[in-house]
């Protein structure tokens, strides 16, 4: 068990926006026992989340919204990246954000400075967002007024890899201040990503970032992913990302 993330506690502490939610408990009548028997199940343990994620995907598709699941280690620059993306898209695409953190609504407050709607999920001890939390948070946003929904996942490169949220694109961030070998250390996350963004490129020289090595590692693990290199702070390289996003949103709209 992971003592650090303590993600086993099952979401009882999860708070979404201003509300807390309680879990429903179902009670079944018990029949009589018929001696020893083996019941074949052969079912995925992720089945419940997978079903809820597909339900989200269908719902978001009907709303003609492009949905991003942004994942990275803590401190790779997810919040700044999302805030700059929303601010620069401005009126061309209307962005809303669902942001997950174990505690505090600091990220939500930072995102609101871009003048966009933000719903905070505080997960308590849970180290990832799941499809159910996203469905409940999305219900608190005026989705008809949005073109792009960005889900900022909990900073963690392990657990969120297994939880489909119903997104169109999984976007993984790797900052130049992290090791170039992050993709090799966390292959499930990097392999599952549709987009990989190298962030904080303005600090590359100071951080002694080996660009060729990082790109080689990304190409190895995320070989199918679209790669962008940018600095959210200076805006360098961000245009290519925004162009890509606009094209992706058009594609969703045409589906």
């Amino acid at each position, binding site marked *: 068990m992971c003592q650090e993330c303590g993600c086993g506690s099952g979401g009882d502490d999860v708070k979404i926006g201003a509300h807390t939610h309680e879990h429903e408990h179902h009670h079944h009548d018990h029949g009589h*026992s018929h001696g*020893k028997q083996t019941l074949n199940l052969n079912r995925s*343990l992720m089945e419940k989340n997978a079903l809820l994620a597909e339900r989200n995907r269908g719902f978001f598709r009907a709303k003609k919204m492009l949905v991003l699941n942004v994942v990275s280690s803590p401190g790779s620059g997810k919040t700044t990246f999302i805030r700059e993306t929303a601010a620069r898209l401005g009126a061309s695409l209307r962005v809303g954000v669902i942001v997950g953190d174990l505690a505090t609504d600091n990220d939500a407050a930072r995102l609101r400075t871009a003048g966009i709607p933000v719903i905070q999920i505080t997960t308590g001890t849970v180290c990832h967002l799941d499809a159910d939390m996203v469905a409940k948070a999305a219900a608190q946003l005026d989705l008809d007024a949005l073109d792009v929904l960005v889900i900022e996942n909990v900073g963690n490169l392990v657990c969120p890899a297994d939880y489909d949220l119903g997104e169109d694109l999984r976007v993984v961030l790797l900052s130049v201040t992290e090791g170039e070998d992050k993709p090799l250390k966390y292959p499930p996350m990097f392999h599952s990503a549709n987009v990989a963004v190298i962030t904080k490129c303005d600090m590359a020289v100071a951080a002694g970032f080996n660009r060729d090595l990082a790109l080689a590692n990304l190409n190895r693990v995320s070989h199918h992913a679209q790669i962008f290199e940018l600095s959210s702070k200076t805006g360098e390289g961000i245009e290519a990302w925004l162009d890509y996003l606009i094209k992706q949103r058009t594609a969703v709209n045409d589906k």
Partner: protein
Amino acid sequence: MHEVSIMTEALRMAMDAAKSAGATRVLKLRLRIGSLSGVVPEALRFAFDVVVQGTMAEGATLEIETVRAACWCATCQAEFECENFFNECPRCHDVSGELRRGREMEIADVETS
């Protein structure tokens, strides 16, 4: 990883199936876990001992079957077993990232009474 969440879900599925079948106890759970699933069997066992307490599965045994990962080689049109996500095919040495097995997290069956 999130072994406690996974074990809680496995137990929920096992108990739902047992109750639907009219059983009162769960005696054994059998899980199938891929070698590259990221789930640690020892952590699952630890979690199991904790989550079964006070349930109809208290005292049940846990069997974990490990599924060895395998990649698909498009050149050879054949599978090969592997230890990682990206591997060279031992026959033609092409690199394959197409994992065919090894990410499983499944409940296979449950023994009840």
